[in-house]
């Protein structure tokens, strides 16, 4: 088996723009799935609406392409009815934190065993590049011509309101680190959230001064640093994993070992 078997390569090219960061996430996810033995009998994907949400259509799993913002209630119900399954949610930052924000708050609180990969391109990509709750203050977008007004939502703080939850920060440039974060997230016995900074070159990057995706990736390389080992909180632009207290494994996931918890970055 190869990670390529996890992807419907016959549907390529994807609808994503050349240089988009979403494909980099899909590749790493496919590799982790291959490593962990995730297949169409033990794993379900749940995606939201947005460019990111298309990922489910490209992968070799049963996949629920939910309404905008509604991945989490669907995913949590699947995990409740079928605790043996790996439930992998892939969704955009707008989907997850804006329209789906209330579900995020409560999924964190209830701590179901689901893995969330949030493609955080700091923009509403699909609808043309409007500002959202993850857009940095001052960013000029098609709906914030004078620059975004409000501070972005504190995702780490939100996830860590549950002492048992798992939060990882990574970028699509840091492929090795992203892969490790995704792997540990899938193995985590409760709610695991991977916050992946990535580029929407077409509807954001170019408008804020990056000539191409390459410059954006280089920017991530320069700006983001690994957090010191043992960090229990990540500073802005720090990469790492903050695991909550070890929750009791709710069920042994098929094909994936249950995670052990420790404050580790």
């Amino acid at each position, binding site marked *: 088996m190869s990670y390529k078997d996890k992807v419907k390569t016959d549907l390529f090219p994807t609808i994503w723009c050349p240089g988009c960061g979403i494909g980099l996430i899909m590749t790493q996810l496919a590799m982790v799935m291959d490593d962990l033995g995730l297949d169409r009998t033990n794993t379900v994907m749940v995606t939201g609406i947005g460019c990111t949400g298309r990922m489910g*259509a490209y992968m070799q*799993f049963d*996949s629920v392409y939910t309404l905008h913002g509604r991945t989490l*209630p669907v995913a949590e*119900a699947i995990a409740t009815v079928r605790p043996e399954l790996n439930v992998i949610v892939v969704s955009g930052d707008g989907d997850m934190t804006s329209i789906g924000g209330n579900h995020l708050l*409560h999924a964190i609180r209830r701590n179901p065993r689901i893995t969330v990969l949030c493609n955080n391109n700091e923009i509403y990509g699909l609808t043309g590049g409007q500002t959202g709750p993850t857009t940095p203050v001052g960013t000029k977008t098609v709906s914030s011509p004078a620059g975004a007004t409000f501070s972005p939502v504190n995702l780490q703080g939100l996830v860590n309101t549950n002492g048992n939850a798992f939060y990882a920060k990574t970028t699509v440039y840091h492929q090795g680190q992203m892969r490790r974060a995704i792997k540990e997230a899938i193995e985590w016995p409760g709610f695991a959230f991977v916050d992946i900074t990535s580029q929407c070159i077409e509807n954001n990057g170019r408008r804020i001064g990056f000539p191409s995706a390459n410059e954006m990736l280089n920017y991530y390389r320069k700006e983001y640093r690994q957090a010191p080992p043992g960090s229990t909180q990540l500073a802005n632009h720090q990469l790492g994993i903050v695991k909550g207290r070890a929750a009791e494994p709710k069920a042994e996931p098929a094909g994936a070992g249950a995670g052990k918890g420790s404050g580790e970055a």
Partner: protein
Amino acid sequence: MAKRLLQGNEAVLLGAVKAGATYFAGYPISPSSEVLMAASVYAASHPELRFLQAEDEIASANAIIGASLAGAKSFTATSGPGFSLMQEAIGYAHKLGVPTVFVDVQRVGPATGMPTMPGQGDILQTRYGSSGDYTSIVFYPSTVAECYEYTIRAFNCAEESRSPVVLLSDAFLGHLNEVVDLDAIRVPVVERTLEPLASGHTRLFSGVATYPDGEPATADADEFIRQYEEAKARRLEVSERYAFHEYGWNKDADTLVIAFGITRRIAQPLAPHFALFRPIRIWPVLQDELREIAPRYRRIVVIEGSDGQYASVVERVLYRDVYRVPLLGGRMSLEAVREGLDRIGLLPAELAEAAV
């Protein structure tokens, strides 16, 4: 055999359990909360029923869709503004073809309205509440025993039609206590029709228009129409087997009363003077039955807890005007029925005298 006193909302829960439901999600709201509470109590001693008190009705509605896809017969119960919040998810369930059951215990709206007062103002919302075209199947019982029976049928019909089915109730019926013998109600249960997630396929359950292989079909009218017609045909065909209604009272009278849900019970004293047509399947509208029965009557009066929602449907189906007796603001009483009939000059003398 065992007779017992049972409330309409509790009968819904027992019907769901009988039908094989193993997942409930809901959010408290009068007058439907007893379904949620009864589900939580039942789940506490029957772990096969998974129970979620969700953060809101949007989550509840989407959760029962996820649960159904995962393999559980699932349902929720709500009222008024909660049902409005569920409309997007109901459209999604229609698009996916997911069997699940939405129970709507109607109160007086719009908005928060009159939370504990009975209404029937969701008739059109159950048909047109979500965006776009879809084929709704909706049942509306009139007694506590029927709450049980039609909950089972709603689950069955959801499976057969592969669509979300709405069971309507109202504050009056939901809170009504009646002596029932559930053992005497025998409805065969239809087994699951949808192969659960992770059975080895790579299906895409998509709210977005897509081709069977998962590629976007968002600009292909032919494909859209093909999928739409297929879903519609299936729902219409299945609902033919669920064409439940009641035709009775004084069939020789010259006026036909149409009433459903609790209103049919309230109107019972009209029995000697009018014929009665009671649709139990509210949607698809019982067009053939109405067209067969209506010509026998000089006048038709629709008595309902809304300002003519069902009356407008009857007019459209029959191409003729009907009289309306709207019972508004929760005034769903015989007194209000009498007043309404009097206003349109159709109150029988005996009933007018009885009123004094």
